């Protein structure tokens, strides 16, 4: 009885470790293929369009509202200390370093990650991937790599757009609605925000883009080839991407701060 429980426990630990190992091996494979795949530019461009240009509307809309909320909350908080002119600084740093990369990554996982995973899952379910292998075409090179690279390229650009629109939203609420002085808003921001802050955000969004894309292509490529399996792969993509983005965010912040 006790032995059975221990065996069960051991099995699940082993399974978790194996899953981690599979992810690491797949990541190593993808990283190894990257330089060669970048040369097949046309395929990558198509995926930048799918992952980036098609996510643009949702990213811009979310950015605007996040920025506007930041304007309201920031104003309310800073007013208590009598320093509402610092709203620009607070909004800019918050957007650049945290909200921009993280919310963009979460939206990216929901919008582009699921599309990737279900597309690859359906390819697997309808034997398209097997057919490629039959024709001696490497499906990782032909199908997986462009999608991964498209996501990696698109994500930092999306995060930058998110931050810019968010800042506009914060300015809209802070200056137009709450009456913070426009000059103070921008000049305080400009004095306090460093070039390194922008780079920190860019680096974060790049890391998140790589993580989200890797999870999406892995889950899609390795999905069980049934309707249920594709659905499960999509769900897992969102869950694993979101958790790993938040985990990575803590680690990266702790390292770079």
């Amino acid at each position, binding site marked *: 009885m006790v032995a059975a429980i221990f065996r069960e426990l051991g099995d699940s630990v082993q399974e978790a470790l194996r899953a981690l190992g599979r992810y690491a091996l797949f990541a190593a494979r993808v990283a190894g293929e990257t330089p060669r795949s970048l040369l097949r530019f046309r395929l990558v461009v198509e995926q930048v369009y799918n992952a980036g240009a098609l996510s643009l509307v949702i990213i811009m809309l979310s950015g605007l509202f996040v920025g506007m909320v930041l304007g309201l909350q920031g104003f309310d908080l800073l007013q208590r200390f009598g320093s509402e002119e610092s709203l620009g600084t607070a909004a800019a740093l918050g957007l650049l370093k945290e909200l921009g990369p993280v919310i963009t990554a979460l939206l990216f996982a929901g919008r582009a990650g699921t599309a990737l995973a279900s597309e690859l899952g359906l390819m697997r379910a309808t034997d398209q991937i097997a057919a490629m292998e039959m024709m001696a075409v490497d499906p990782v090179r032909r199908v997986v790599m462009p999608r991964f690279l498209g996501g990696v390229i698109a994500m930092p650009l999306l995060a*930058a757009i998110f931050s810019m629109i968010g800042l506009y939203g914060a300015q809209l609420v802070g200056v137009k609605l709450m009456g913070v002085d426009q000059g103070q808003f921008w000049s305080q921001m400009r004095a306090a925000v460093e070039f390194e802050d922008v780079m920190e955000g860019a680096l974060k969004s790049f890391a998140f883009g790589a993580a989200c894309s890797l999870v999406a292509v892995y889950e899609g490529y390795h999905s069980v080839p049934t309707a249920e399996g594709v659905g499960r792969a999509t769900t897992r993509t969102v869950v694993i991407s979101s958790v790993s983005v938040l985990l990575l965010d803590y680690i990266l912040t702790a390292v770079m701060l």
Partner: protein
Amino acid sequence: MRQTRAIELGTGLFVLLGFAALFFLVTQITNREFGLGEGGYRLTATFEQVGGLKPGAPVSMSGVTIGRVESIAYDFSEYRARVELRIEPQYDKIPDDSDASVLTAGLLGGQYVGVGPGSSETFFKDGDRIQFTQSAIVLENLISKFLFSKAAEQQPADGAAQGSKP
């Protein structure tokens, strides 16, 4: 064919917008200026205390930014902080007995170097040193000074009050 052209156009627009956003964030939000680091001339000044002054902070005369702080280092020959200032070339008529002080913009704002014009007929040139400097005010010192003077005021007053009691 039509399809691919639309995709290429969309991707191009997206990438352009993304880089425009990145460019906006770097140039409009941060105080870094590109391509202007080489022009102008350099002055040095030593301070007892620079407080929170950082490289990139503005150098201003009557509130007009005339340059930037280029570097801050500790000078062991004088045991003072040595600040290098880069002044933009059009501001070449600063009298050479002008003074420099480390000031704070607003109550919580960043620190900058303020230059007050002197009355000399000759002007600073590249590599000169500003002789007259005033250090940053350290808030703790100011508060402790205030408290001590308050306490010193209080003591005789208390003594007088006690003395008049009986």
